[in-house]
Every structure is written in structure tokens, then in C-alpha cells.
């Protein structure tokens, strides 16, 4: 009965939380908002909806630059089948080894440091890293590269502050670390809610991205793609638990790195393996120069020829709000270490030394990947031209895939198809690996923290615990599929940023204070988690991430005016292109909602920042510290010695591994 109740409660909570965000902007890719052409903020490759292309007047690329990207369906689908086959094999093997709770949540602590390093990289690098960042570089040059840096530097925090202490002091979840010297029930409950919130935001973005990507690449309908990906992810987690999830992530990281490496070699070969020449090519490309000229013209700056080419290597083409970048940087640097699916990876290794080794290996893989991404992004700009990339996807998300097809085809046409199909399947594996990790983290929080420890007071035998874990994963996965189906038209780009904001403002402060501050206690954990989470979500709700119909209507007026001008300039009797007509129709519809407000009832954003970190992180820390100071607890202070000795030495850890 209780299990049933908790499942119902959990799925309701999840659905409501996601629906609040997913339901909101039905007409998301705002017609005139330049943001619609921007690459996805971290997270899923948000493939701009059709129509957005025409909506950005500057994107009116010369027709000669028009390109197409169509994967060979037979080759691509058979490569998908190979990946599905291999991973299912892994699941069957893993399922046989998954008997106890420790097996299910932590692969029995039997993952080596090296394996875990690859798995962390596989867990972390989403399709957005793979496709979004290189796309951003191909269209905006330097800013894309600068953007990628924070994703690696984040691991310094993981390495120095959280990895080893968490391995020594924790067991399966965030709740385990936080409840050590606090009142376990309320702390676990709040920690579980925060974990589920972060995972759901991230999962929604991934699922929607997955559906759109698959639809675009291989022409599978959106809903079919979501259900397919969803069933696989549920299958991996329910049957194979952490062991299967880990190996899916390792396989994905391997595929991703080999794809990126191979493509980089081809790019470098084009430049005769001479980096100086490679950069000269960027600066001297007439297409890049033309593209940059148009970009800076929007800011009223005239720049031509080689100066425009050089500008591509300088900051400021995309990131025009420095405070927002710093805010995002803070969320990355602190949020990664508070991500439940990343924290969970440290419980799979046997010792703190292995945890240390795994972070360092992950850092080399992730950093190496981003360095290669620069080559891919600039390589795409040189070989495909920014105009050609925009013509396929205004956000540039397809740049890497187009590059693979082109460079492969330069050698032999069939090779182009093969290489493209290979990279499509890498994207597919990437999605599977990331969503599985998230489902596992969310279900561990619900099953282990709420069901076993809050409802059952920790009195559940192995069989019951594993059963609860499996049922919860099934439900979480099903809810994930449902949200994915519901959110097809929603604007999900901000959800990944939101997940990082919650992780950095809610989770990280309380983890750090639990591990390092003697006076920290129950009140501190709860106030820190609640304030950090609520502040992040609340600030995003009043930020420019939401849709403001009034602003959309204003933009639409401009589009209509521009289109009318265009129409007037045409020869008599000529009509606007199909895309223009569509944009005009959309603008005419948007313009009607002149007095509309966002879901918060605002006509324009209160906060100018898209990333709330710079405000919400200090708030989270302050709330945690104040809460602890206002409600001191003697027992928590006395137990600090134990926590501190444990997290530094690993004493008493054998118990935590549960053998």
C-alpha cells in the first residue's frame, strides 16, 4: 500500500513540476527573438522549429549556399541496431549480477577508477556538448570555445571538494551524505525532492532534444523516437541497474571520443596538419568574413575583409551579457559537483583513491573532447561556411554531422554516408547514456531515501529494496516518456541551465557544509536546500527565459513591417518565398496577443539574467548557514568528528559498501 502511495505521490510531483515548465511557452521559438537562432544553452540540442529560419532576417542566406543533411536511413538504422544489440547484451549480463541493493545503485562498488572515469565522461557529455558547442563555434567562433571551458573547470570542484569525501561518507544517494549527522527523515525527504527536481529538469531537456534530433536525422516521428529512447532507457536501468548504466556510459564515451578524434584528423588533414595554416584559413575565408560582417552590423559596427575574419577569433559575437556568462560559469563550476547523477558515480568505486583517479581520467576525456570540438567547430566554419550551416539549422546544431558527411564524401561518397551514420549513432548512444544516468539517480532518491528510509525506517530486506528500486525506475522512466511526449512544442532550452542552478544553489552548499563545517545541522540542510532550490526556480520564472507575449508581439510587428517592405521591393506580381509567408503568418498570429503576460503574470522579465546563479548561489549558502546558526544542534556538532574522520580516512567505509 505504502509503496503504491509513494509511487503515485512521486509521479504526481514529477509531472506537476515538469508540466509547470513544459506547458508554458506553446509558441516558444519566438518569431523575432534573435535567441531563437542561438545555439542551445547547455543541454539538449534544441533544434529550432521550422519557421524560425525565416524569422531571423539576417539568416537569409544566399540560395547558392543552401545545403541539405539527410542521413542514409538504412545504414543509420542498422548502426542504431548494432548499438542497441550491444547494450542489450550488456544489460542481460548486468542483470545476472544485480542481486543486492548495492549492486543496483552502486554496481556493488566493483567499478574500477578507469572505468568510472569513462563512465563519468559518458554521463556528463550530453548531445548538446557534442552537437551544440561545435555548432556555436562554427557560427560565433571564439565565444563557443570560451563557453566550453566552464564545463571542464567544473571538475576541479568535483575533484578537490566532493569526490573523495562523498565516496568515504556516502552510500548511494545525496540523502545518505546529508543525513549522516542530522535528523534523517526530513533531510532525506528534502534531498530526494531536490534530486528529483534536478533530474527531471535535465531529463525533460534531454528527452525533447532526443525526439527532435532523431526526427531530424533519420526521419523517425518525434513520438516514436521518444517512446523508443524511453523504453531502452527504462530497460537498461530496471534490469541492469548501475552496472548496465555504467557500461552504456562507457561505450558511449568511447564512441564519442573515437568519432570526435576521427573527424578532427580529417579536419586537420585538410589544413595539412598545420595549425597556423588552419587559423589563417578561418581569418581569410570570404564566407566567414561575410558572416561576421553581418553579425557585427546588427550592433552598428562596420567591419570587412580580413578584419571581419579576425573578429571571428575574438570574444563578443554571441555572449553579449557578461554578467550572465559569469553567472552561468558559477552555476557550472559549483553545480556539476552538486548533480545527483554525477555524485552517484562515486559510490560505484571501491575506494577514495579510485574516486580520485576516476575524476582525473574523466577530466582528460572531457577536456580532450572540448579541445577537439574547437577543431570541429572551426573546421565546419571553414569547410561548410556559416551560411551553409545556418541553412540546415539556424542554431548550428547540425554542424558536426554535416562536416562528417562532407569530409567523408570528399574521400568517397559512400564514406560520407557511413561517417554521418556513425556520428548519428554516437548521438543516439549519447542520449541513451545520459538519460539512463538521470533515471537511475532520480529513482535512487525516491526508492532509497523516501521509501526505504523515510517510510520503512530503513527496515526493508534486500529483496524488497531491489524490488522498490526497480519499480521506481520503471515509474520514473514512464513519467520521463510522458513528459517528453507532452513537451514536444515547449521551450526546454532553459531547463538544463535551471538544473545546474538548482544543483549549485541548493545541493552544493549543503554538501560542502555537511562535510566541512562542524556547526552544520538539520535546520541548515533544510533551509539551504529549500531556499537554494526555490530561489533558482523562482528567479528563472521571472527571467527572460520565459515567454512574454507582449515582447513577442512587439517583435512580430517588426517582422510584419520587414516582410511588407520585402514584398514592396519585389517585382510586381512576384510573391514571397514559402518560408517568408510562414513567418508572416506566425507573426500575424503573435501580434494579436499584445496584452498577454507570461505564466507569472508579467508583461516583461523582472530579472535581466538568464542564469540565476550569481544571486541564487549566495542565497543558498546564506540560508544554509543562517538556518544552522539559528537552530544549533549539539548532537550534530558532536558527530562532526566522526564525519570528518570518515571522509578523510575512509574508516568505517566497509560498512557503507554493504558486503
Amino acid at each position, binding site marked *: 500500500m505504502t509503496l503504491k502511495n509513494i509511487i503515485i505521490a512521486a509521479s504526481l510531483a514529477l509531472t506537476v513540476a515538469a508540466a509547470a515548465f513544459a506547458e508554458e511557452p506553446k509558441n516558444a521559438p519566438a518569431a523575432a527573438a534573435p535567441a531563437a537562432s542561438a545555439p542551445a544553452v547547455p543541454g539538449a540540442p534544441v533544434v529550432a522549429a521550422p519557421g524560425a529560419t525565416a524569422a531571423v532576417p539576417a539568416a537569409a542566406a544566399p540560395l547558392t549556399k543552401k545545403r541539405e543533411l539527410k542521413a542514409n536511413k538504412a545504414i543509420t538504422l542498422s548502426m542504431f541496431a548494432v548499438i542497441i544489440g550491444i547494450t542489450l547484451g550488456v544489460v542481460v549480463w548486468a542483470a545476472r549480477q544485480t542481486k543486492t541493493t548495492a549492486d543496483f545503485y552502486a554496481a556493488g562498488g566493483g567499478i574500477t577508477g578507469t572505468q568510472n572515469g569513462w563512465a563519468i565522461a559518458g554521463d556528463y557529455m550530453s548531445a548538446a556538448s557534442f552537437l551544440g558547442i561545435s555548432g556555436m563555434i562554427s557560427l560565433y567562433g*571564439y565565444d563557443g570555445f570560451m563557453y566550453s571551458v566552464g564545463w571542464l573547470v567544473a571538475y576541479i*570542484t568535483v575533484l578537490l571538494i566532493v569526490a573523495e569525501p562523498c565516496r568515504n561518507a556516502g552510500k548511494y544517494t545525496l540523502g545518505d551524505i546529508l543525513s549522516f549527522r542530522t535528523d534523517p527523515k526530513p533531510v532525506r525527504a528534502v534531498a530526494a525532492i531536490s534530486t528529483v527536481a534536478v533530474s527531471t529538469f535535465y531529463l525533460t531537456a534531454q528527452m525533447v532534444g532526443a525526439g527532435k534530433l532523431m526526427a531530424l536525422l533519420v526521419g523517425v516521428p518525434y513520438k516514436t523516437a521518444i517512446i523508443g529512447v524511453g523504453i531502452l532507457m527504462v530497460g537498461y536501468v530496471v534490469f541492469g541497474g548501475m552496472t548496465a548504466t555504467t557500461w552504456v556510459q562507457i561505450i558511449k564515451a568511447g564512441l564519442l571520443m573515437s568519432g570526435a578524434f576521427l573527424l578532427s584528423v580529417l579536419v586537420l588533414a585538410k589544413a595539412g596538419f598545420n595549425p597556423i595554416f588552419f587559423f589563417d584559413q578561418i581569418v581569410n575565408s570570404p564566407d566567414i568574413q561575410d558572416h561576421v560582417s553581418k553579425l557585427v552590423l546588427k550592433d552598428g559596427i562596420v567591419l570587412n575583409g580580413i578584419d571581419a575574419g579576425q573578429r571571428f577569433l575574438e570574444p563578443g559575437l554571441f555572449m553579449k551579457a557578461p554578467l550572465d556568462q559569469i553567472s552561468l560559469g558559477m552555476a557550472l563550476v559549483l553545480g556539476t559537483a552538486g548533480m545527483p547523477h554525477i555524485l552517484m558515480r562515486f559510490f560505484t568505486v571501491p575506494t577514495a583513491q579510485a574516486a580520485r583517479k576516476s575524476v582525473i581520467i574523466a577530466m582528460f576525456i572531457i577536456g580532450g573532447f572540448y579541445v577537439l570540438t574547437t577543431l570541429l567547430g572551426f573546421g565546419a566554419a571553414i569547410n561548410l561556411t556559416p551560411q551553409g550551416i545556418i541553412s540546415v539549422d539556424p542554431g548550428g546544431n547540425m554542424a558536426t554531422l554535416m562536416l562528417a558527411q562532407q569530409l567523408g564524401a570528399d574521400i568517397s561518397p559512400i564514406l560520407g554516408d557511413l561517417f554521418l551514420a556513425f556520428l548519428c549513432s554516437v548521438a543516439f548512444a549519447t542520449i541513451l547514456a545520459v538519460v539512463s544516468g538521470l533515471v537511475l539517480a532520480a529513482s535512487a532518491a525516491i526508492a532509497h531515501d523516501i521509501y526505504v528510509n523515510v517510510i520503512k525506517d530503513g527496515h526493508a530486506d534486500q529483496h524488497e529494496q531491489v524490488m522498490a528500486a526497480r519499480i521506481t525506475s520503471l515509474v520514473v522512466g514512464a513519467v520521463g516518456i510522458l513528459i517528453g511526449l507532452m513537451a514536444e512544442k515547449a521551450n526546454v532550452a532553459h531547463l538544463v541551465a535551471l538544473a545546474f542552478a538548482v544543483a549549485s544553489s541548493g545541493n552544493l552548499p549543503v554538501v560542502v557544509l555537511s562535510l566541512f563545517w562542524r556547526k552544520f545541522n538539520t535546520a541548515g540542510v533544510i533551509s539551504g536546500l529549500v531556499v537554494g532550490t526555490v530561489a533558482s526556480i523562482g528567479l528563472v520564472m521571472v527571467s527572460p527565459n520565459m515567454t512574454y507575449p507582449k515582447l513577442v508581439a512587439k517583435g512580430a510587428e517588426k517582422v510584419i513591417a520587414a516582410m511588407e517592405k520585402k514584398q514592396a521591393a519585389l517585382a510586381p506580381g512576384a510573391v514571397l518565398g514559402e518560408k517568408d509567408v510562414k513567418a508572416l503568418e506566425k507573426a500575424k498570429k503573435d501580434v494579436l496577443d499584445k496584452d498577454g503576460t507570461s505564466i507569472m503574470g508579467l508583461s516583461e522579465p523582472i530579472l535581466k539574467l538568464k542564469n540565476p546563479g550569481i544571486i541564487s548561489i549566495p542565497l543558498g549558502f546564506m540560508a544554509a548557514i543562517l538556518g544552522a546558526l539559528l537552530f544549533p544542534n549539539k548532537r550534530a556538532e558532536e558527530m562532526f568528528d566522526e564525519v570528518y574522520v570518515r571522509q578523510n*580516512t575512509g574508516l568505517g567505509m566497509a560498512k557503507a559498501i554493504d558486503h
Partner: protein
Amino acid sequence: MAEKKYDWAAIAKNPKFVELHHKKQAFLFGWWIFSSLYYFLLPIGAAYAPGLFKIKMIGVINFGYVFALSQFFVSWALALYYAHVANKDFDRLTKELINELHL
């Protein structure tokens, strides 16, 4: 809760543990602050010192590019340095402590 097998308060006062704790704390937080400062120089510099970022260093490759690339190498170097110190000092001290406690 944990069974009272160890006298945690006594271990926490053990000179070996105190030494470990001091060394570790200084290293971890010191280098964490360093790496964060170094990282935030990138977005801050890009926004407020664009002139510096434009200076060409090798051919058309400018300071901004070299600086962004250096972030990767600084992070890797710090990771390796930490691994070196932890393997050599922290792990040794921990081992000595555990031996001393006869655990």
C-alpha cells in the same frame, strides 16, 4: 547510525590526523580558489578587456585563444599535481594513522 567501533573524537585529536587535516584543507581550498579565480578571469577578461584578448601572439592566433586553451592545461596540470600530492602525502599520512590506531 554507525556502531561505536571507533572513538572518533580521539582519532580527530590524534596528531597524525591533525597534520593530515591541516595539510589537506590548505591544499584543497587554496588550489580550488586559485582555479576558480583563473577561470573567472576568462569571462571577465573577455567582457572587460577585449583589447588584451585581441593581441595577436602566433600568426593570427590571439591572446584570448591562447588564454582559453591554457584553461584546459591549467586544469589538467592541477589535477595531476593533486593526484601526485594526494598519492604521496595524504595517502601516506592516512595509512600511518590507521597503522598507529591498529585498525
